[in-house]
């Protein structure tokens, strides 16, 4: 090591020219200008921010000093409705995403199938679930079913993308073996790709459900029912002691679901690893 260091310092080093990266610098300046314009346009009311801590304390006291626990039953019922919406949305969305996502993977579907599907997923990804719900409630009305349907359709955008990316990341060996023994394309998908990709896709499906639990509360705001709708109602009627209960319920339920779902996801991915020796925790 030392010998090479000495010879290196003795001879003149041919240091490569430092790249200029003009494009990177230009992009940085452009981003700065956009951010400054945003501040100028929104017209921040700094004096109101100064009053925010006091307001927060005031409303916090209204909500949480003496929560109206008699509303707990109703809150739990509406939360159950929201979670059901999330579940149905996740299941419908994941089933549709799997059916549409697999043909969209490189090496499975031909280009004329892959590209239109990917465009559809990208368009759906660009639309928030609330927007989708507003579009379809003209057909299905202000019902929890509208919420579930919006979650299902909205879920396709991301979950189908995850599906084809997962399928594309599957090592080609198993699929080649199925093809070599005379398997058709569907058999290659079913027994060469699916067994390898399934644990990760299951894990992503559960993650989709976690996201849906949060989104279903937001969907309630437009009136499709569930805890979000209840939250809007009681906020508008300024019944802060009930709003306090609702917020507690939403946070607790969401955290519990996240914890359970996260634990299951870890189990799935751990089980997916090759188990040679017994695992110790």
């Amino acid at each position, binding site marked *: 090591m030392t010998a090479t260091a000495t010879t290196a310092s003795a001879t003149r080093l041919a240091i490569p020219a430092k790249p200029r990266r003009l494009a990177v610098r230009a992009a940085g300046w452009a981003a700065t200008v956009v951010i400054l314009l945003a501040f100028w346009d929104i017209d921040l009311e700094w004096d109101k921010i100064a009053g925010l801590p006091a307001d927060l304390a005031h409303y916090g006291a209204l909500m949480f000093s003496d929560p109206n626990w008699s509303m707990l039953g109703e809150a739990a019922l509406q939360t159950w409705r929201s979670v059901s919406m999330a579940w149905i949305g996740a299941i419908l969305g994941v089933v549709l995403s799997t059916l549409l996502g697999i043909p969209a993977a490189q090496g499975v579907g031909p280009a004329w199938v892959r590209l239109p599907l990917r465009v559809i997923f990208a368009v759906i990804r660009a639309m928030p679930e609330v927007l989708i719900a507003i579009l379809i409630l003209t057909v299905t009305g202000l019902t929890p079913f509208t919420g579930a349907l919006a979650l299902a359709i909205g879920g396709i955008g991301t979950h189908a993308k995850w599906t084809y990316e997962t399928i594309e990341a599957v090592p080609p*060996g198993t699929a080649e073996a199925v093809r070599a023994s005379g398997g058709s394309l569907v058999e290659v998908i079913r*027994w060469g790709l699916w067994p390898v990709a399934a644990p990760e896709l299951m894990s992503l499906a559960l993650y989709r459900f976690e996201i849906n639990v949060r989104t279903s509360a937001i969907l309630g705001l437009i009136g499709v029912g569930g805890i979000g709708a209840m939250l809007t109602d009681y906020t508008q009627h300024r019944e802060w002691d009930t709003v306090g209960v609702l917020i507690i319920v939403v946070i607790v339920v969401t955290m519990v679901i996240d914890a359970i779902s996260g634990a299951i996801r870890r189990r799935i991915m751990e089980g997916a690893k090759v188990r040679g020796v017994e695992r110790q925790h």
Partner: protein
Amino acid sequence: MSDTAAARRPEAGDHVSPASGPWPITLDNVTVRYPNGVVALKDVSLSIGAGEMVAVVGLSGSGKSTMIRTINGLVQPTQGTVTVGPHAMTSLKGAALRRARGDIGMIFQSFNLADRTSVYRNAMVGRFSHTPTWRTLLGISTAEDRDIVMRALASVGMLEKVWGRAGALSGGQKQRVAIARALAQEPAVMLADEPVASLDPPTAHSVMADLADINADRGLTVLVNLHLMDLARQYTTRMIGLRAGEVVYDGPAASATDADFEQIYGRPVQQRDRLGEK
């Protein structure tokens, strides 16, 4: 594995391959040029007799992997024709090609099992070309298919692991399951692409012995890609040497000299060209 060879004998008669006997393999002026411009095979012509046990020897990049894949149609030649028994592989498409592949078993260097699935399901893949698609998709197999799969697993000594996960097996066990998967096809020809390159020397020898048994007892035509000279000499009767996509040696395996191997490798023989450790 010689002790199990005797137990295997009756099965060879039980399940006759569709051709009722091994098949010859013929390559006529086969050239493979990949889309990226690489020429993997240059005008290769070969004739392999029914029931022969042949080693294809060459360094990595010599084209032996491509050659074995032209035989079951996983790679289609740019020019030339490949014939396996009654099948003109180079002119087959779709269902006919899949049926022909069903008569040709293949095993791989990296075993290519679905690790998260049971040994049984993996071996059942060998029945796909003989089974309606709706059955294979739902995983509902006939009693006959089940029987064939169980016998194939038993013949390689893996029956007791049938309900275990493939991923939990050792390398040698995985390769045996892969052999069972190929045998479940009841093939007339067995192809093996570097079947022992991922295995330790004792396991490598026993898997090579399994392949030799398949050739001797079931009478299948066996084609094995290898890069180690002692394995070729010990387990096969004929050796084909490939270098840069061309056949540079074709003759008996046992009597092939070090000079012959140097011609195939295009360099002096080195320590790593032998597996050793019987």
